[in-house]
């Protein structure tokens, strides 16, 4: 990871320096070293803050909507974006939907060995964390704290989305910096969905009621989601008939999340950003994965963003499609 990181930063500088790109969309460390946030670097100088480490989980694809299309007039130069393998799916999906002007983008595919969740590190008893370093042995991280050092197994502290990593292959790029062999997908991403499906309707209802009642309608999920990228959300639009700023009753929470998931059904690349950014820790990906699982079961395997230009499952049909009445039974089992 360290090596890739150095190469990536050096290459970004080089591309900016030689004029190939005029902007860089990457990550910048925030107040703490683990607060890596998306940032648009517009000068060579500013690139000193560019980072690429275990905490760059954020998917930068969505930032390319603004930065590729509204990148200014003639001769403004391309915009460099750093994409991890999973991010490229979102990028492709946005290309499919004409949200990104491919011409204006230079994609640097960056290798990824999994991104960490600081909360999971904390859960393992570390306090006063001052740094996270790659250990010499392959699968461990060294956690330095105010009180000394400790080690953790990487697999134990990955982001939820990395638990079911799609694989290490980039689906689109102009240039690649990666040491990783593609080992294919990791884990069973539908495990959580299956667990819920196995519950009784009452249990499921209770589960969602408990989870969704935590929702504070901060819209972080919506803002982070690369598929949820409408210019104006229906929930903000008075003309839509369902506009609402906050939940006035608890069905509205459900309505918001179901509609959000429905709007991205067939377009969601399962990038996991919604769950990653939720300040309340709601497992929002369980909505999206339910749709993905149903789509796979009903209409055949489909991975949004696998390639640009795909025709999504909700804008396709076959004459023999499953009936909704049967879908409920099949989907639930």
């Amino acid at each position, binding site marked *: 990871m360290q090596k890739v990181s150095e190469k990536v930063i050096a290459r970004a500088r080089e591309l900016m320096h030689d004029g190939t790109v005029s902007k860089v969309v990457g990550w910048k460390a925030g107040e703490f070293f683990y607060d890596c946030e998306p940032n648009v670097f517009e000068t060579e100088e500013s690139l000193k803050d560019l980072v690429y480490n275990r905490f760059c989980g954020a998917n930068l694809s969505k930032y390319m909507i603004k930065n590729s299309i509204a990148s200014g007039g003639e001769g403004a130069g391309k915009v460099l974006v750093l994409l991890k393998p999973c991010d490229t799916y979102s990028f492709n999906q946005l290309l499919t939907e004409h949200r990104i002007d491919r011409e204006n983008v230079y994609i640097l595919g960056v290798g990824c060995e999994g991104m960490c969740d600081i909360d999971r590190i904390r859960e393992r008893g570390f306090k006063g964390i001052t740094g996270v370093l790659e250990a010499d042995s392959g699968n461990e991280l060294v956690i330095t704290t105010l009180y000394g050092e400790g080690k953790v197994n990487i697999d134990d502290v990955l982001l939820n989305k990395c638990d079911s990593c799609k694989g290490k292959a980039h689906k689109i790029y102009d240039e690649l910096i990666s040491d990783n062999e593609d080992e294919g997908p990791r884990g069973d991403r539908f495990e959580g969905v299956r667990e819920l499906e196995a519950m009784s309707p009452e249990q499921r209802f209770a589960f969602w009621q408990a989870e969704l009642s935590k929702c504070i309608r901060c819209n972080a999920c919506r803002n982070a989601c690369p598929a949820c990228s409408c210019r104006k959300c229906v929930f903000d639009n008075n003309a839509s*008939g369902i506009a609402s700023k906050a939940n006035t*009753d608890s*069905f509205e929470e459900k309505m918001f999340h179901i509609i959000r*998931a429905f709007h991205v059904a067939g377009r969601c690349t399962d990038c996991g950003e919604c769950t990653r950014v939720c300040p309340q820790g709601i497992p929002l990906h369980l909505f999206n994965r339910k749709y993905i699982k149903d789509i796979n079961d009903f209409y055949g395997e489909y991975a949004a963003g696998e390639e640009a230009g795909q025709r999504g*499952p909700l804008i396709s*049909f076959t004459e023999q499609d499953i009936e*909704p009445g049967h*879908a*409920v039974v099949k989907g639930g089992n």
Partner: protein
Amino acid sequence: MSVNVSVNEPAVKAAAENAAGANTENKEWRPRIVAFCCNWCSYAGADLAGSSRLSYPADVKIIRVPCSCRVNPMFILKAFERGADGVILCGCHPGDCHYSTGNYYTRRRMALLFSMLDYIGVERGRTRVEWVSAAEGARFSAVMNDFVAKITELGENVKVGDLRCKK
């Protein structure tokens, strides 16, 4: 594919009796049912049920839409939010859509939506899609009788209702 409507006899009878006795027992609970019908087949099928005097409970209220594919999942969720106990969506039989392909999209959307509603714990029977042609007045009536019976059996939409902000 059309389903064979297996009418639940006692429940239908109960529903009919309840409907009949509505004015005597004023406070008795009746389900609220929203039916979306496409203009070309199902709405006409409902008209035929009417002109053939094939009764079904008055709990069913029909909203006319040009095609079943006009029905946005938001409408269905809105209905539940506002206290509907059941929502049924009727369209032309697959292959017979007036707009040739509309109901195929409906079928996919609703398959996913219904599966999701089931997933969040809403009872399976509260939503339904039926294909009813303009010639199937009898079928329209049978479908509605059956649906009302099933919803009556399920009772008030407590799960959603409890959460609802009662006005």
